[in-house]
């Protein structure tokens, strides 16, 4: 069997074994549906609400992506300012750390109350708030640890600061940036779902999960969890693909 086939088959086998074990566990303990759903219950639940799933998955996805995009813009801006100016780093760092230290689960109801009914805005805001910190920190560290010689080879030729930034500082920081983006995309996804679950009359997979909870529809709740897992995986690998395109040179050897 080729390495490639192994790479595709082995995770599939792992997933199938996991589902079988889950099915067996529910069957063996004779758990009713309202206690624990089994994999065979999920598909009917999913199919019954398939239109809602499609619509809400789209909501969750675009809110996460927009929040993440905002986090990238703001995080990179903060990172650049802190990376180049020691004064700004000293001034802003405690603020950012404090901001990041507040558990976002407590911010969610606050934001939901301030902007009542602004579902899209609230969700994007939380996704952004929860995910911009790692980006800002990684970019600032990447830029501030640039060895002076890297700067000097271009500066000695009369290159401007901006040129040094585009030609050297920015590309050199990309591997760290993408490392942070992987973390940030997961965080943004969590943020989106937190807000969707908390907000009444909202949309998104988080909302669908919440209505499953209210109606004690366990198969629906589990179906949402599976859908979220699939969405999370898609998001993560989208970042991995971007990383391969823009920072593939940093990879020492193929790991997967």
């Amino acid at each position, binding site marked *: 069997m080729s390495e490639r086939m192994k790479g595709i088959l082995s995770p599939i086998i792992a997933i199938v074994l996991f589902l079988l074990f889950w099915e067996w566990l529910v069957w063996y303990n004779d758990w009713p549906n309202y206690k624990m759903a089994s994999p065979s219950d999920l598909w009917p639940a999913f199919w019954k609400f398939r239109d809602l799933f499609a619509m809400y998955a789209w909501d969750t996805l675009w809110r996460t992506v927009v929040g993440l995009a905002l986090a990238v813009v703001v995080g990179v801006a903060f990172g650049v300012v802190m990376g180049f100016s020691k004064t700004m780093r000293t001034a802003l760092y405690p603020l950012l750390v404090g901001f990041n230290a507040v558990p976002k689960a407590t911010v969610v109801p606050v934001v939901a109350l301030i902007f009542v009914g602004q579902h899209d805005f609230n969700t994007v805001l939380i996704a952004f708030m929860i995910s911009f910190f790692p980006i800002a920190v990684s970019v600032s560290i990447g830029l501030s640890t640039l060895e002076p010689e890297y700067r000097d080879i271009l500066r*000695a030729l*009369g290159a401007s600061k901006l040129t040094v930034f585009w030609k050297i500082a920015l590309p050199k920081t990309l591997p760290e940036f993408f490392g942070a983006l992987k973390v940030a995309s997961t965080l943004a996804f969590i943020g989106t779902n937190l807000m969707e679950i908390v907000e009444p009359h909202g949309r998104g997979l988080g909302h669908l999960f919440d209505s499953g909870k209210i109606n004690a529809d366990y198969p629906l709740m589990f179906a949402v969890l599976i859908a979220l897992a699939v969405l999370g995986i898609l998001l993560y690998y989208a970042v991995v693909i971007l990383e391969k395109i823009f*920072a593939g040179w940093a990879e020492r050897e193929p790991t997967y």
Partner: protein
Amino acid sequence: MSVDVGIENVSHAYTTGQQSLPVLDKLNLTIPAGQFTAVVGPSGCGKSTLTRLASGLMAPDSGAVTLNEERVTSPRSTVGMAFQNPVLLEWRTIIENVVLPMEIVKHDLTRNQCLKRAAKLLELVGLADFKHKRPSELSGGMRQRASLCRALVHKPDLLILDEPFGALDAFTREDLWQIMRELRGRESFTGLLITHDLRESVFLADQVVVLSGRPATCQYVLDVTLPEDRRIDSLYTPEAVEMLATLREQIEIAQGRKQEVAA
């Protein structure tokens, strides 16, 4: 085209907090156009500071750095630099690294002509087959050769080398000395080489300057009298051995381990 380099009465100090550390003290040094000068001196005496002043990356507190009588006040595109760390960019192939200066300095060559020039230099230093490799795929000596090509690709008037071979093993270093002499024969530039290897200074330079301990002044100047077509063997001739002995003695004086005997 090479230039006359003048370091005239240059003094410089670094200020950190309230403390001021004088590094260079009324240093005088001239390098005639096309000549190669090596600067040796105790560690921490201000040699790298001298390269930063000569390249215009920093301005001296007092005194002047001149190129062809013209005062240097800021970096200029007619300078090429290489350091102990080859600082190659990992996201570029070797040839892309070498053409980097051509993306900064003004010139009227096409991209293709720039790549041709880079390829020619890489061939000269024996890296023709490694043009499209990544820096991490090369050995330390190969990376340093690529770094030399990058320092020369835009035909600088002045080549500044700050301990470029310092991190290499002895045999690789001797290879690179010969490559450096080869490059000197084909390209025209004035050279300023910082080194802590006395044999290297004698082999590569026309003139060796010994700096005193910090704050550094020009303590001794030695004119190298070896023939133009030097080989490593030339370092074992009686006159070379004598020059090396003189330099060794001067270094010990600079380090303060030996008193200067009044002649």
